[in-house]
């Protein structure tokens, strides 16, 4: 894998910020060379780069070619990362709120002197077919999909998009986890 990387760099401009293109037949003639196996090597960049030309983002229709499109993609990825952090916090608070269903199991146990004592067990949980659990499941699926999207975005190795993911995660944590920390403080420290 490493040798193909070096071969690719030999006919590409080292100072270029363009990532190796995915569609060789459609690029300019500067990439023309005798090798017919050019489509097989370096389909994905494997090191970080800063650039906004011909950046494929997640879906086959989404290709970034201009600085304006990169700015729009930056904002969109930023908001997606913020939404992911918010979804995590929202699911936690939803779980805490829905765990109000407490089941008591009472069973008689023999006590001293032959008396019968009632032992009470308390269990906190959700029923499988209850609405809160179904909602949690749907939100879990959404969270898993968004987390994989963020991973794939980071996998483009594009410096701008990676910074957008990190900044969005930090801002989302800052905005949403502050509320969560205050709520936790209420239940644990202020009686």
């Amino acid at each position: 894998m490493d040798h193909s990387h070096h071969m690719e760099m030999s006919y590409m401009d080292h100072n270029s910020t363009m990532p190796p293109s995915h569609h060789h037949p459609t690029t300019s003639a500067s990439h023309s060379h005798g090798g017919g196996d050019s489509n097989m090597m370096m389909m994905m960049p494997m090191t970080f780069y800063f650039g906004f030309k011909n950046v494929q983002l997640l879906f086959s229709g989404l290709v970034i070619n201009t600085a304006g499109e990169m700015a729009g993609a930056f904002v969109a990825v930023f908001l997606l990362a913020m939404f992911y952090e918010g979804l995590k916090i929202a699911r936690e608070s939803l779980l805490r709120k829905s765990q109000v269903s407490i089941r008591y199991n009472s069973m008689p146990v023999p006590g001293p002197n032959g008396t019968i004592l009632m032992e009470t067990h308390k269990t906190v949980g959700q029923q499988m077919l209850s609405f809160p659990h179904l909602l949690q499941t749907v939100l879990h699926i959404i969270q898993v999909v968004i987390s994989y999207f963020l991973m794939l975005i980071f996998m483009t190795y594009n410096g701008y998009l990676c910074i957008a993911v990190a900044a969005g995660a930090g801002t989302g944590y800052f905005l949403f986890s502050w509320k969560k920390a205050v709520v936790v403080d209420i239940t644990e420290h202020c009686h």
Partner: protein
Amino acid sequence: MASMHFIFSDTVVLLFDFWSVHSPAGMALSVLVVLLLAVLYEGIKVGKAKLLHQVLVNLPTCISQQAIAETDGESAGSDSSPVSRTHHRWYLCHFGQSLIHVVQVVIGYFIMLAVMSYNTWIFLGVVLGSAVGYYLAYPLLSVA
């Protein structure tokens, strides 16, 4: 596409253009760096939780009650400067926590990309680093 299966190899390019490994010595050093990165990741996870707990313990107990009362619109007059000072401290601390969170997210993604190189030595370094980091850090969590 680059090789999509695990290989044992002494050559790899990790994350950045300048981090290219050619020799067994370089590979051993890279595995050590990735191992320490995984240890740091586990440590940061525990450190964030401990920091939050320490802040909640050290700040005045009913800061959140006053915060809730203020957000209800019936804000008390600005006579309580100690309250605003502790609010300020709380916001600073939470901002610091957010920065730690960003570092944790970035390190997590870097480790993911390192594993994506499909080099078996690097992968074993990540796994070992996660195990060592978890082993060292998580007992500190239960003390709190």
